[in-house]
């Protein structure tokens, strides 16, 4: 069944709809602005459309129907942990006392919000083996940046200003090297070994007096557990460097093992992945930053502290790297994450990762029946398949498989990442999918691989059931059209 309505007529832009003066009676008419400002302080025109509420409701309802979310179907996007987002989370985040609370409300009138942040912070610290978490960063990438700023300040305080290298495995997310560059660090990219892991001997070869931080994720983006993580951490620590844990894949271990016990000094979580916060089409995210004891005083401000029965925002932290955002946290997401913690408790979270790993391994062995899986061993929450042999045989690429899945009502896996696997499909089913759904997905994929052999042309033309066909990305990049423009009068 196609994922979406096959209505292919173009939706007009909101700017091409409506008529001047079709105002909705949300507020009364205001006085002319000229009575309050000199004329040159005011703008002379405001070229925006006026539409009735009904037309606006229809317009965005229609746009929503042209958008695929988890609520519509299976979303096996590797490294993104697209699990079900319970509706209770949104209901609680939307409570008036949370949603209408101004960030500058004095602490004594915001005790509820502070308690939410405090409970979440304490729970995360225990769950991941960190001394403390900052809930400030708006997303994982911002937490990485904040963490590297923490490292920079820490080394500066110790007089170790020569530490300017960040070690990043070649399977790492692109944000890792990009964050390092924003801190003025240079990046050493580390080759994974034949088993898809980081070899501690390689680490020993590259670490030294200039090592600042080694950034890793465990399990890594191939879905493989770095079982020699202790040796890696020891090598980095002996050289005087810090270990950073990219928590994008935390769904594979929470409640079962802790980055803190693996020797990581800093870490982030993507609670919009692991803790069922809806991703909202690309954000907002929420990226708590965890640190070991020796780095707590460097965390961004403010930090939530508890004094007896009272909670407060502590801004007075002289060694802090400073704030990283306008206000304290993506607080509405902290409410959602806490609600998810309450729904599971420690044992429930351990079960979550067990089921996530079970689902991934089940899919892995099924997919291996017809696609190459380059790392044929027990995986964690995700695994990679490669369309390289299929491409040699039929010309069908990972991209074609992805597009053909869209025609069959599934979101495509992550493709062409990690970069070290040619024609890569990175598949993460998450724990919330039933065996029936996984089986349907396997059969769809099996059918696509069969079609590649019998009628590859069909796949080159996919998708055909969606509102548009394959999109011309080259034209988009060569002749950027990033906005609508009013017709000249």
């Amino acid at each position, binding site marked *: 069944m196609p994922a979406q309505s096959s209505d292919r007529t173009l939706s007009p832009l909101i700017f091409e709809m409506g008529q001047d003066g079709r105002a909705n009676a949300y507020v009364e008419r205001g006085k002319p602005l000229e009575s309050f400002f000199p004329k040159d302080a005011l703008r002379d025109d405001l070229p925006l459309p006026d539409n009735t509420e009904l037309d606006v409701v229809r317009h965005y309802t229609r746009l929503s129907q042209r958008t695929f979310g988890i609520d519509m179907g299976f979303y096996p996007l590797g490294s993104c942990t697209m699990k079900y987002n319970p509706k209770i989370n949104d209901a609680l985040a939307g409570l008036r006392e949370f949603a209408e609370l101004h960030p500058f409300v004095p602490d004594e009138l915001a005790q509820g919000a502070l308690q939410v942040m405090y409970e979440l912070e304490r729970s995360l610290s225990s769950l991941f083996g960190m001394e403390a978490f900052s809930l400030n960063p708006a997303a994982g990438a911002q937490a990485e940046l904040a963490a590297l700023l923490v490292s920079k300040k820490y080394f500066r305080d110790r007089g170790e200003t020569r530490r300017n290298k960040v070690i990043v495995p070649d399977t790492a997310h692109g944000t890792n090297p990009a964050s390092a560059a924003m801190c003025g660090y240079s990046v050493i990219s580390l080759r994974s070994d034949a088993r898809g892991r980081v070899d501690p001997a390689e680490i020993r070869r590259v670490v030294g007096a200039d090592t600042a931080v080694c950034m890793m994720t465990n399990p890594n983006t191939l879905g493989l557990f770095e079982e020699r993580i202790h040796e890696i951490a020891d090598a980095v620590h002996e050289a005087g460097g810090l270990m950073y844990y990219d928590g994008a894949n935390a769904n594979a271990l929470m409640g079962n093992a802790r980055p803190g016990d693996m020797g990581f000094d800093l870490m982030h979580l993507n609670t919009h992945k692991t803790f069922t916060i809806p991703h909202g089409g690309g954000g907002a995210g929420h990226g708590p930053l965890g640190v070991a004891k020796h780095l707590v005083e460097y965390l961004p401000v403010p930090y939530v502290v508890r004094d007896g029965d009272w909670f407060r925002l502590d801004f007075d932290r002289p060694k802090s790297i400073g704030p990283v955002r306008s206000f304290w946290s993506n607080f509405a997401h902290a409410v959602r994450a806490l609600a998810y913690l309450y729904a599971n408790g420690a044992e429930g979270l351990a079960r979550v990762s067990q089921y996530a790993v079970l689902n991934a391994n089940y899919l892995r062995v099924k997919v291996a029946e017809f696609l190459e899986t380059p790392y044929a061993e027990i995986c964690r929450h995700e695994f990679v398949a490669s369309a390289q042999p299929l491409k040699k045989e039929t010309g069908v690429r990972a991209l074609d498989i992805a597009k053909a899945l869209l025609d069959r009502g599934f979101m495509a896996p992550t493709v*062409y990442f990690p970069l070290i696997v040619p024609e890569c499909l990175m598949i993460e089913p998450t724990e919330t999918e039933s065996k029936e759904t996984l089986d349907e997905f396997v059969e769809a994929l099996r059918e696509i691989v069969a079609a590649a052999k019998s009628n590859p042309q069909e796949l080159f033309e996919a998708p055909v059931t969606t509102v548009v066909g394959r999109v011309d*990305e*080259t034209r988009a*990049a*060569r002749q950027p059209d990033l906005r609508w423009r009013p017709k000249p009068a």
Partner: protein
Amino acid sequence: MAQPEQLLYSKEHEWVRIEGDHAVVGITEYAQHSLGDIVYVELPKVGTHVRQFTNIGVVESVKAVSDLFTPISGEVVQINDALETDPAAVNRDPYGDGWFLRLKLADTSEQKNLLNARDYEKLVAE
């Protein structure tokens, strides 16, 4: 594939055409083909001095970015402005309209570090 005889080549798939004390630089047919549709070329400013085999810019395709290395040292005296609006020229005509920049040569002896057409063909065939 046959490479133009009169050009010199680098192992990083750039070509050079020597014109007196000037050199014109671009990327090879092989390079444009493996990069796919090129959407943007970032070149150094006129007046910049560049050193042989160092990074001087980037070539972007839709989903990849590649470093651009200069095959020879010199001062940038002209860049191909037309690529700004028509980066497709690199795909269409890498040895002609798709040229990148013109250098005033700093050291003619560097040419010995480059490959001739036959050797470059061998490199690409491997």
